[in-house]
């Protein structure tokens, strides 16, 4: 009997940092944001309870259209990232051996040693009208005047895919690593073509990794701020920019808080829908990530 309290105390102490971290930095601020999102300005320094901030999102087309645009583009980015990352992950997990494998993973990781802002500015140097690509195109005669490649949706998607690649490759490579070579061989022995083996054996095996990577990339993309703002310019409106604008330039915290909660709920709903569609459960997916 005397040992039990001591043991639970140890457990409590071990868990304390995690609980404090979650409680103070995640749960508490969210509760405060939630409370804030239900207050409406009546007069200077007078606020009342109300749902007006949420109604504003649904009645003003501007805001929900921005959200829809952000969500659709994020889904496109996630799909593109998956298509690009799959062969790379397959190569790293199945073909590369020893030092080559470590080096390839390191190469994927390397760009993340500088901050997102610097990477995005790097893309701007490449893509701008007086930038390197435009200059090269003119030098080899493919264009007769400067080409502006920045400030459009393509540039935004490019930047976001680039930023999401690593977070797709790692869970994918993890999932593919556990695939038994004998299972693939058996597939070929039974007369399966390369395509059939990929579709019926490799992809189903990698499914938890695919879902885990997709969730991470989608959430990172939806919540991104710098990349759409810098690469998209005047046409790069992203929902996070609306939240920033409400908080910082409009001083309208309750509206910004409501937008923040809506972003959290709507993007969670999209992830949930994605899990349902692919028949995956969150539990197995999390194990993979």
């Amino acid at each position, binding site marked *: 009997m005397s040992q039990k309290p001591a043991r639970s105390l140890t457990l409590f102490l071990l868990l304390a940092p995690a609980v404090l971290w979650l409680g103070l930095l995640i749960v508490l601020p969210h509760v405060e944001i939630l409370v804030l999102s239900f207050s409406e300005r009546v007069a200077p*320094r007078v606020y009342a309870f109300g749902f007006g901030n949420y109604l504003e999102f649904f009645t003003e087309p501007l805001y929900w259209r921005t959200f829809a645009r952000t969500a659709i583009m994020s889904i496109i980015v996630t799909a593109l990232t998956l298509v690009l990352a799959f062969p790379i992950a397959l190569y790293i997990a199945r073909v590369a051996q020893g030092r080559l494998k470590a080096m390839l993973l390191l190469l994927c990781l390397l760009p993340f040693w500088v901050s997102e802002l610097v990477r995005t500015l790097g893309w701007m140097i490449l893509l701008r009208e007086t930038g390197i690509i435009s200059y090269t195109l003119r030098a080899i005669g493919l264009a007769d005047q400067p080409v502006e490649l920045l400030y459009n949706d393509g540039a935004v998607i490019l930047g976001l895919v680039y930023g999401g690649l690593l977070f797709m490759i790692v869970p994918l490579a993890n999932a593919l690593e556990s695939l038994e070579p004998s299972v693939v061989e058996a597939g070929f022995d039974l007369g399966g073509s390369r395509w059939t083996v990929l579709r019926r054996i490799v992809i189903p095996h990698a499914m938890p990794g695919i879902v885990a990577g997709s969730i991470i990339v989608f959430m990172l993309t939806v919540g991104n701020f710098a990349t759409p703002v810098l690469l998209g*310019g*005047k046409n790069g409106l992203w929902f996070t920019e609306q939240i920033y604008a409400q908080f910082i*330039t409009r001083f309208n915290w309750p509206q910004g808080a409501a937008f923040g909660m809506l972003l959290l709920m709507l993007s969670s709903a999209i992830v949930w829908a994605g899990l349902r569609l692919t028949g995956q459960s969150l539990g197995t997916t999390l194990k993979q990530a």
Partner: protein
Amino acid sequence: MLTKRASLKLATAFAALMIAGSAHAAEKLRLLTWSGYAPADVIEQFKKETGIEVEVTTSNNEEIISKLRATQGAGFDIVQPSQDRIAGPQTEFGIYKPLDLSKIKSDQFIASMLEATKKNTSVDGKVYGVPHIWGTDGLVVNTKAAPKVADYNDLCDPSLAGKTSFRAKRPALIAFAFANGMDPFAAYGDAKAYAALMEKVGAKLAECKKNVKFFWEGSDQLLNAVRSGEIVAAMAWDTGGWKLNAENADMKFIAPKSGALGWVDTFAIPAKGRNDDAAYKWINFNMRPEIAAKVAAAAGNFTASNGADKLMQGKLKDQFAESFPKAAIDNIKWYPAVPAGLEEIEGKVLDRLKAGS
């Protein structure tokens, strides 16, 4: 369990931290300002004279207000918002402290500017700001590539498609209102009329958006684009225009036909500033003509200090004379204080402008 020694160490560390904290508070002035307003040599000299160390954070109007609002006016000892952005936020959020004018040497200021600023920054009979640096918003033009630009509306001229820029912020709304024959300041008192007027300006800007390469955010971003030739005409601050003019005589700052917009950045004290004495010392120190001239030269703008203009270098004076003939000076539209609530109307127009294609 903590051993005796460990707890002793912890206590010592805490004590040391507290001493260090209080010792710093006694000799530090936390300044929240615009870039260029606190040059290193001025800070150095202030420290030599008073022993007070100045800790500089650079920002802009919106962020100054947002930062102070987040802490209800704590975190800084002196801030520099524009004169029109004091009364509204003060009414709404109570983030500033009334100034004790007896502690400010008023004869160091240009009298008319001091009076105007005091009037604009008053709430319930208390004054919240005194002027420091002033300048204007107008047109920065590459006169070789875009010789015809003379007013804000010319930024929407199809012949300059993809080569113009403005900031998607309130000065653009005000400027295009004047350029299209409306007087936004006259509508300040009537929120409904103001909303209708802003709708019209918003429609005009939405049409103009096709012509704009990007809405610029930071002045370095804009200046680089003008230098490289990507932008040939933009609505921007005079200081940026004169900076470019010093590098290339074809680049000019032009006072638009419908009037340049005049702004005044102030000194104000946050509601929970901890070092008011140092703040007043900093204000009086900064308004001394020789210091004010130094700061004005570093910022590339003009100062509200009385007598500093005689100490200014020739270049900026010449540039000002070229950009502002007598009639253009009289035509400068000075921002009146923004009443609380109007910025919400403007905000929505700007949101729509950014979202439209």
